[in-house]
């Protein structure tokens, strides 16, 4: 089927600049298939329903717009922990700055190494969940990523990892246009915490495919970097086996364009999937979009989506969240909340919550609100001697609390809270 002309044009323009990387036969085949998917679906266009609130132009463009490097960067978050630390600089694995790629309870390799070799589990999973995630809604940047990404990590967790894997994305170039692709397989009963931080690139396209087998647990906490000009389209795809757990939290502060998609399938009975985010945006150049699609396809699963956005000075926040309950997915417990705190009259929050339910014995709820600081609470704090600006910050943290509660490790939650407080304090003048 032919694409509409505007889509065909942007797709052609982008593809004209691409050459597929080489690698082992399986990698070449996987990339060719991904390119085929992209060519068939085309890059997004402003008239696509899924891109109604977020203009894809800057993500579509053949060249990434330069983004100024940020000075005043803080120390790397999570740096004080004992982790298996992996560093990418401008999208390229930085061996000198990284830990040795080995750890108890897991196998880990650089994607490029896996693609040159015949690591059977990497071959088995690369691009598979991304391909699955193209239906019922197309996710062209994820297909593009599978076609062109040369770097990333592949991790196979066989037991309980003895320390978190921590990936830091550094930036040195103003123009780096980066695609990174991670594949993570948690075997039965395995457990891993993955931490990510850093701005990565002027324009980042990131895909993470996570296959969580029966009874396995995956914890994910990421912060996307405070650089104002950075752009990112990220996708997390995760398939959950019976009785498994998946928890992902993202802190998005600043950034000209962030589109974070999470596509989760609850395939086995009694799985639990939580995805949460806290966003902080200041100024009309801030645009942050969380797009979530959770499919319940088994009995007794639980899913939660908790997204909170603090917006000021003309910032824009977007949330599109869907819960799809397939026929037979009885006893589903689905919850979704998206809220914005508008600190002034100029900012906007656009939300599209969706439920699609084909089973009758389920509990699903969703809510979305936009509001200002609660005057009564503000008065209460001020009446105790807390100055107005500080009181406003406390109430802003209070607003974000429900999202932070989704981080299971309290130490990690505290580190995130410190960053939030820092962000707010810097704006207190």
């Amino acid at each position, binding site marked *: 089927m032919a694409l509409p002309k505007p889509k065909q044009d942007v797709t052609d323009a982008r593809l004209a600049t691409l050459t597929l990387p080489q690698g082992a036969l399986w990698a070449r085949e996987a990339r060719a298939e991904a390119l085929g998917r992209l060519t068939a679906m085309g890059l997004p266009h402003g008239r696509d329903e899924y891109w109604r609130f977020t203009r894809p132009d800057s993500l579509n463009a053949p060249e990434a717009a330069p983004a100024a490097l940020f000075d005043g960067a803080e120390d790397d978050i999570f740096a004080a922990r004992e982790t298996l630390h992996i560093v990418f600089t401008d999208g390229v694995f930085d061996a000198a700055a990284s830990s040795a790629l080995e750890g108890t309870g897991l196998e880990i390799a650089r994607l490029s190494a896996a693609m040159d070799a015949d690591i059977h589990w990497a071959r088995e999973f690369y691009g598979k969940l991304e391909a699955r995630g193209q239906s019922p809604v197309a996710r062209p940047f994820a297909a593009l990523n599978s076609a062109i990404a040369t770097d990333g990590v592949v991790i196979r967790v066989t037991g309980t990892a003895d320390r978190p894997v921590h990936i830091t994305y550094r930036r040195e170039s103003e123009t780096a246009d980066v695609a990174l692709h991670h594949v993570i397989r948690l075997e039965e009963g395995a457990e891993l915490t993955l931490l990510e931080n850093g701005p990565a690139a002027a324009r980042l396209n990131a895909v993470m495919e996570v296959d969580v087998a029966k009874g396995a647990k995956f914890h994910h906490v990421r912060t996307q970097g405070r650089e104002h000009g950075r752009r990112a389209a990220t996708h997390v795809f995760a398939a959950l086996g019976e009785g498994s757990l998946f928890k992902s939290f993202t802190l998005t502060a600043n950034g000209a364009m962030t589109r974070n998609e999470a596509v989760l399938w609850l395939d086995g009975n009694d799985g639990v999937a939580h995805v949460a985010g806290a966003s902080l945006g200041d100024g009309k150049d801030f645009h942050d979009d969380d797009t979530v699609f959770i499919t319940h396809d088994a009995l007794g699963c639980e899913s939660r989506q908790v997204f909170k956005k603090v917006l000021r000075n003309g910032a824009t926040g977007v949330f599109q969240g869907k819960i799809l309950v397939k026929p037979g997915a009885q006893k589903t417990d689905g919850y979704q909340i998206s809220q914005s705190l508008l600190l002034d009259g100029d900012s906007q929050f656009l939300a599209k919550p969706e439920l699609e339910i084909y089973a009758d014995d389920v509990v699903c709820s969703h809510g979305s609100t936009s509001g200002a600081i609660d005057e009564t609470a503000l008065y*209460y704090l001020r*009446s105790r*001697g*807390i100055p107005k600006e500080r009181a406003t910050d*406390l*109430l802003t*943290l209070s607003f974000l609390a429900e999202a932070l509660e989704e981080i299971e490790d309290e130490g990690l939650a505290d580190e995130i809270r410190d960053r939030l407080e820092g962000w707010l304090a810097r704006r207190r003048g």
Partner: protein
Amino acid sequence: MLNIKGLTVDLEEEDKQILKGVDLEVGAGEVHAIMGPNGSGKSTLSYVLSGREGYEVTGGTATLEGEDLLAMEPEERAAAGLFLAFQYPVEIPGVGNMTFLRTALNAQRKAKGEEEVSAADFLKLVRERAKTLNIDAEMLKRPVNVGFSGGEKKRNEILQMAVLEPKMCILDETDSGLDVDAMKLVSEGVNALRSEGRSFLVITHYQRLLNHITPDVVHIMADGRIIKTGGPELALEVEENGYANILGELA
């Protein structure tokens, strides 16, 4: 300590006069009670004194130790030594009770040009004050007032008072929603704070709280004015005969 003269106040949104000329003087170390029927303006008086938005002062003055309260922001009034124990304490999810208390205490100290309290000293202070109010470590750890029972919320108000050590404490219907045991605990907490340099204004609809916190002076408020002032016996009169008699004798 607290001096109110001819205070008249309108509700901003409805352009309706609530306080119609309140005169009140509370001396240092004194405990005054304001009683009155619902809608007499008792709570409005407490809100106006503490600086809540939504009220327009159209006339009169209110000073705390000579300082013009009405010209100050709510946080400045607190630093000046005013404290209002809320009738409905506000729940603040995600902000720990300890963080809240410490932020408030240090903000007030900073406003007064004093050093911030160290974490260790603060912990010691709160534990000591919490103990007498039967507030356990669990309650201190929880977010401010979230999931607290009515009695716990009121005890938490008194704990804040005990930690912040204000000069002028206003208790707005602190007895509402309390059972007998909770009222006893709260009253003991308040009585422990009574001192020469600290004054109290106890706003209540019922006399029962005043069995536990004995006032020096009782005022009856009706229709935005203080209509009668007397000793503790005035509260007993209200208890026995209701407000109708007092209102009647003035009509």
